[in-house]
């Protein structure tokens, strides 16, 4: 059995031993659409992360019987075309919940606690020259007692809610689908969420309901002391509007892990903010601790084994 992974670099240099044990495994770091067409010849199991699985690709790989998404979202796969050819499609869910929640709070606490500023104050020698034992001229605010507003109360949103409550935050949420409810937390509409949140964190998928959900108008409803964190998908927040709102002080700051275009173009507004110190970024790694990547590879291997019937 020939297993081909067309964009294996997305998982990094981790071990693919679990996949190598199942057959003849060929991993390509990355593939252009043309290379993809050539590389699926003779392939039985196709693994992709962001690579587009189109009818043309399936035609070039007539022996493909299973497509494995090495992630949760399958926007890149033409599932109907796969089904029409009798090809099974499997994704991996929940492997990254704990890591995304962790990265979310890394950002929240860095924004609230002014982590970068204070670290620089010490490393630059400014603290040493200050003659005062504590640097008290830059205020930072406490999480305890503040309101944490969550957009999207799926598995990640719920984990974030749980940790927020452990930090003594008041948790409120807005369900973008209207399907997720949890009586443990107060459900509000988007307007209420925007107006009340001291920290607003996004954990929703990209759908027609969430595309452009938060733009200039919504940002103007937020408190000037509030922070916005987007760990969901890039297009949920209008990126130019967010930069304007943070630079003008409409809100206090933002942290972003996901972008409309990835990687971020060099001329993107995020890279030209007047106040970069009010922003925290991670390059779409919120999901990708070493442990989560290991679980992901194991999840793909399990999907293949289950499909094989063993």
């Amino acid at each position, binding site marked *: 059995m020939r297993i081909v992974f067309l964009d294996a670099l997305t998982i990094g240099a981790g071990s693919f031993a679990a996949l190598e044990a199942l057959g003849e495994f060929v991993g390509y770091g990355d593939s252009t659409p043309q290379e993809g067409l050539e590389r699926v010849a003779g392939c039985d199991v196709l693994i992709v992360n962001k690579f587009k699985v189109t009818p043309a690709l399936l035609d070039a790989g007539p022996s493909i019987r299973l497509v494995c998404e090495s992630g949760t979202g399958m926007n890149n796969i033409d599932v109907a075309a796969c089904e029409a050819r009798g090809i099974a499609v499997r994704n991996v869910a929940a492997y990254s919940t704990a890591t995304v929640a962790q990265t979310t709070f890394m950002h929240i606490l860095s924004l609230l606690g002014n982590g*970068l500023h*204070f670290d620089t104050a010490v490393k630059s*020698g400014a603290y040493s020259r200050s003659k005062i034992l504590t640097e008290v001229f830059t205020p930072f605010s406490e999480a305890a007692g503040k309101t944490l507003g969550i957009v999207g109360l799926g598995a990640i949103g719920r984990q974030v809610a*749980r940790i927020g409550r452990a930090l003594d935050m008041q948790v409120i949420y807005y369900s973008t689908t209207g399907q997720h409810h949890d009586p443990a937390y107060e459900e509000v509409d988007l307007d209420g969420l925007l107006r009340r949140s001291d920290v607003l964190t996004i954990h929703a998928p990209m759908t027609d309901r969430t595309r452009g959900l938060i733009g200039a108008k919504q940002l103007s409803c937020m408190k000037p002391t509030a922070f916005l964190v987007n760990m969901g998908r890039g297009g949920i927040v209008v990126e130019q509007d967010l930069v304007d709102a943070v630079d003008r002080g409409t809100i206090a700051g933002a942290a972003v892990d996901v972008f409309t275009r990835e990687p971020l173009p060099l001329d993107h507004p995020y890279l030209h903010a007047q106040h970069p110190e009010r922003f925290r970024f991670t390059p*779409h790694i919120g999901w990708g601790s070493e442990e989560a990547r290991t679980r992901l590879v194991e999840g793909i291997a399990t999907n293949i084994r289950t499909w094989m019937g063993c």
Partner: protein
Amino acid sequence: MRIVFLDAATLGDTSLAPIARLGELVCYPNSTPQEARERVAGCEVLIVNKIKVDRPLLDAAPSLRLVCEAATGVNNIDLDACAERGIPVRNVAGYSTDSVVQQTFMHMLSLLGDAPYFDAKVKSGEYSRSGLFTDVSRPFVEITGKTLGVIGMGTIGQQVARIATAFGMRVIYYSTSGTGHCKDYPSVSLETLLKESDVVSVHAPLNARTSGLIGARELAWMKPSAFLINLGRGGIIDEADLVAAVDAGQIAGTATDVFTSEPIPLDHPFLQARHPERFRFTPHTAWASVEARERLVAIIAENIEKGW
């Protein structure tokens, strides 16, 4: 009533209005010992943070009725001398717990998640030029399932332990007072704690038991993947040994809010580390959220209102 605050700069720009309401408040940002003796003449209520309240100072303040410590620790106050003169001493406790706990997790998550590295990757444009939607250049560590070793299980240590549990960590602790009073988590020896922990977090006071508690020998017990966080007091960890251990990769990194000498001297080993990216610092600010400072002022005012 004349109220004198000799080192008010330690509270920054926090409003002292709740105290000023109680009498004639005179604030000095900081005072040398000589200045302090001059400034306490005619003072009835003395507020200090780190200024030494010793016999010469008390002798210079014959009208003094009350000493208010604008913090928890009263090491700077000669309590016996105050007692002899019938001057009560009141400190403030518990006002900074939430702030310290929060900054502990800020540091822990920044170390585990390599925050400055990834932030710089994006802001420098390196991510944009990478051609990849994500960044796999440096793996980071998941907090869930890891072991947190708390040194000093007081109010702050217990709060840290509770939040760590919400993150899915296993918590063990070492009691520096030897009482091991907290039954919610296993109490272990220092050696076991250092050997088993993925993150060690120090929340102990500085005393004879904790001074120099962790040096080269103890650091060598730790895992090469482990992080050491000190929000307790400078002097509990040997600072030169810590820098040597982190630079050599004997442990993975460290975060520090407190220093043996504050502010740290420019020639301090912390500022000469070969791998500054493995370090996180805050300039003894973990206690000082806006809210904690407001609580501190409110409680000092209450301490004055109690009278003498």
